[in-house]
């Protein structure tokens, strides 16, 4: 998998972004210092062992690092970053590798700092409603820790069983319930992090209202380009008194969209509003059998809160669905039924593997009111390109996840899928939306950034980056557009060897 990078000039325009690094630079002395810090078992440099770390959940972008280090404490992270800073070695922090934008793509010949062994729960404070964990703790583990007390951690990305809190902080992860409850940035009270020069910094913390610019808010969602987070304090929420979930089927996607508009126009902010089209429904049905109706569109609406409020507003939602011609309305009567509905929704991405040999998950955002028009354009694109496109989206906040199906064995189809995915992003931007709602820019979309931001916008962001990382060693090559990365193979999704072996499924 190693590609020879030496003959190509990879110098970045800004001069601060080392997206490539000469493998020869990581010498024996560096590796033995790494081993001194993290122990022999904490350093991997065997080609076979490194395979796992070549990519995250976006396997068409892969690169071989020179080594992977697995620290077990913040002090070790600090020592490792100090060493990298001293030697000018670029590093990439990695959580559990579930990212969908190549944010954890290694720098060729650089170091991967894998935080999976930094996985202790440091403090659970129920009365003050907060939990402090190391970055390698999974999202769902936080909820598991506090569930017996009637609490939960709100951000719930589909990969929540396996994704790490550190990765959530890097990507500002959302999930199905962020329309009402917001994103990671709204639930993190503080972090401890190692800056690219190896200094430890505390942003936010156990007390509210740290004075000064909100650097905590800035580094959340900075995709690992500003610091390596070593502990995270999150706010936990009391379980709402009542949760009500319904699944309604419609003959057209427009009818489902009209229900969403009317609900929100009536001042109802559901905990979640999800839509899936017929292809996504079929795929989910084949994969996890959620017993979804065979329909053009299903709408999932969840309300939560005080019982009196949920009961009153749920009636309004049911009536609205009926008025817009719902062919089926299924109200979850038990926790099991509710879980089954969500299982169908959350499995939708992975399930595409059941109906297509290959697929590409796009993540774009449009203002909610522009959804019908953008979906129409995506349908037209589907006909024009000849590639099937499944649609799964967070309808409440206009976050689209088109799933572009293709067969890489058919010559040219992979390139066509990539072009279709890029075209959809153009539609999103033209409608006043965003390149990404939750998966991040990473290495995957950095070349699209000029569609959304001017050179001045990007230059200002780069100035901020340089204030944190003047030497450009902290996850270089991500977020900002650069010439094609050396050794980067353009193209959409290819199956990860682990996936091909049936050992893992994409969430």
């Amino acid at each position, binding site marked *: 998998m190693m590609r020879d990078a030496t003959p190509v000039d990879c110098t970045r325009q800004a001069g601060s972004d080392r997206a490539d690094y000469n493998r020869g630079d990581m010498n024996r002395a560096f590796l033995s210092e790494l081993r001194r810090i993290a122990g022999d078992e904490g350093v991997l440099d065997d080609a076979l062992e490194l395979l796992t770390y070549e990519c995250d959940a976006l396997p068409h972008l892969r690169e071989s690092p020179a080594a992977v280090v697995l620290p077990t404490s913040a002090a070790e992270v600090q020592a490792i970053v100090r060493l990298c800073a001293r030697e000018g070695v670029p590093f990439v922090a990695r959580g559990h590798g579930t990212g969908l934008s190549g944010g954890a793509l290694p720098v060729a010949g650089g170091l991967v700092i894998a935080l999976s062994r930094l996985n202790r729960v440091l403090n659970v404070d129920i009365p003050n409603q907060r939990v402090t964990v190391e970055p390698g703790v999974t999202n769902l583990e936080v909820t598991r820790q506090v569930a017996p007390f009637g609490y939960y951690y709100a951000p719930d990305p589909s990969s929540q069983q396996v994704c790490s809190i550190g990765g959530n902080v890097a990507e500002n992860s959302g999930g199905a319930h962020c329309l009402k409850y917001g994103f990671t940035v709204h639930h993190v009270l503080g972090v401890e992090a190692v800056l690219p020069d190896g200094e430890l*910094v505390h942003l936010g913390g156990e*007390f509210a209202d740290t004075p000064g610019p*909100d650097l905590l808010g800035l580094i959340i969602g900075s995709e690992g380009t500003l610091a390596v987070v070593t502990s995270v304090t999150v706010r936990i929420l009391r379980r709402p008194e009542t949760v009500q979930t319904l699944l309604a089927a419609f003959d057209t996607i427009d009818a489902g969209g009209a229900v969403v508009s009317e609900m929100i126009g009536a*001042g109802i902010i559901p905990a979640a509003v999800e839509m899936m089209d017929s292809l996504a429904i079929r795929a989910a049905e084949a994969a996890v059998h959620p017993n979804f109706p065979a329909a053009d569109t299903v709408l999932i609406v969840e309300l939560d809160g005080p019982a009196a409020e949920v009961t009153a507003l749920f009636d309004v939602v049911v009536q609205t669905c009926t008025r817009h011609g719902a062919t089926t309305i299924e109200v979850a009567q038990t926790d099991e039924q509710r879980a089954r509905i969500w299982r169908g929704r959350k499995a939708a991405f992975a399930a595409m593997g059941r109906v297509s040999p290959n697929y590409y998950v796009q993540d774009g*955002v449009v203002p909610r009111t522009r959804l019908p028009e953008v979906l129409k354009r995506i349908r037209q694109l589907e006909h024009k390109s000849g590639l099937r496109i499944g649609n799964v989206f967070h309808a409440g906040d206009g976050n689209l996840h088109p799933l572009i199906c293709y067969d890489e064995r058919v010559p040219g189809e992979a390139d066509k899928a990539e072009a279709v995915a890029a075209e959809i992003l153009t539609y999103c931007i033209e409608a006043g939306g965003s390149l990404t*709602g939750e998966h991040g820019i990473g290495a995957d979309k950095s070349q699209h950034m000029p569609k959304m931001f001017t050179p001045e916008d990007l230059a200002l962001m780069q100035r901020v980056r340089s204030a944190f990382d003047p030497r450009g060693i902290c996850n270089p090559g991500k977020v900002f557009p650069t010439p094609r990365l050396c050794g980067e193979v353009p193209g959409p999704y290819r199956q990860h060897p682990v996936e091909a072996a049936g050992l893992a499924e994409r969430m």
Partner: protein
Amino acid sequence: MCGILQSTPDPVVITPATAEEVAAALRDASERRHSLVIRGAGTKSDWGRPLGRVDAVLDMRRLNRILEHQHGDMTATIEAGATLRDVNRALAQHGQWLPLDPPFADRATMGGILATNDSGPLRHRYGTPRDLVIGIRLATTDGVLAKAGGQVVKNVAGYDLSKLVTGSFGCLAAILSATFKLAPLPRASKTLRVEAPDAAALGQMVRTVMASQLEPIAFEIEIRRSTQRPQSTRKDFSASSASSAFTILLRFASLPAVVDAQIDAASSALKGHAGSVEVIDTDDGQRLWSEHSQQLWNRDGAVVRASWLPANITTALARLEEMTAALKGGPAAGAADGATAMVGRAAVGAGLIRIDADTDSQASVIQQLRASSSFGNVVVVRGSADLKALVDVWGPHGDRQPLFDSLKRALDPAGVLNAGRGPV
């Protein structure tokens, strides 16, 4: 108390009408090394460190338009000089609001509210400005216009530079406009006012509400301590032997029947601990809430922001009591000889403390608050020049200081913005 006009006799006042004019003023100031202070309505211009030399004031109030209200998407893009009150009047036409209620909400501008990240009781449900801003347009000191974020509520493309200027007090760049996510205006609201006999009962009630499934939009504590009899607009405390009054306010907003159900549930949960429980309906509620947010400011005395762990409020109050027990009133304190008052977000653990005492005593309390493990992030927001000479307004930035310094160098290399007011 207007710091700007006091510190320099006659700074030039620039009143730009366009983003380009703001950018030009910033570039010009950078080139000439002129010290520039950005100002909205000036409601908080006395916050921060005493100003150094000020050559020019950039008055943003002509940039006061609502550029867009996408009511179907529940977002609005608003220029920095628009006042929160005008904005909310316009948004109400579509049954929406920007749910912020910082002090001076009747005059404060959006730019000023963002730059100070100021908020009020609604923070309990809706968060602070940083939680509601989704996009920003800035002018930087080199005269460049740049944006970050966007117009959609869900967006993780690029750095969220709106966070960088939130709480910056105009030290890094000028805010031109910002896009916010909005909320539907609640149909009905009522407030439950509960008096607690002592700090222990107050703490018990705070923990009870936090652990409950009640969903108030505001959850406040009020503590008034005096060497004289406490003053109250609602209740005569003269019969009480205690020198402190402890109050909890819970505001519920939803459908009318839901509000009543929540009020009932809260009353029965708290009755056992409370001295008295009173339900205040909408009209009276408006008055109560405006009195609540003004009461800390309507008397002289130093005002500090402070935070604490919400479930540990009883301990924090005991520490505060120890610090203020021996306070002597200063000339400004007048009738409220040696009093303190505290208003805060019960479940966030953040609020304001007013210290009515002579300057040395004020400084001593502030130093003790900073040294105490029960309090954090103690910042002087209002204080005399004498007090600000005795204690640093911001307190130490700890391990964040090097980052603040490098951001300042990156964005304001000539050091022309904010005249040393801080925090950066």
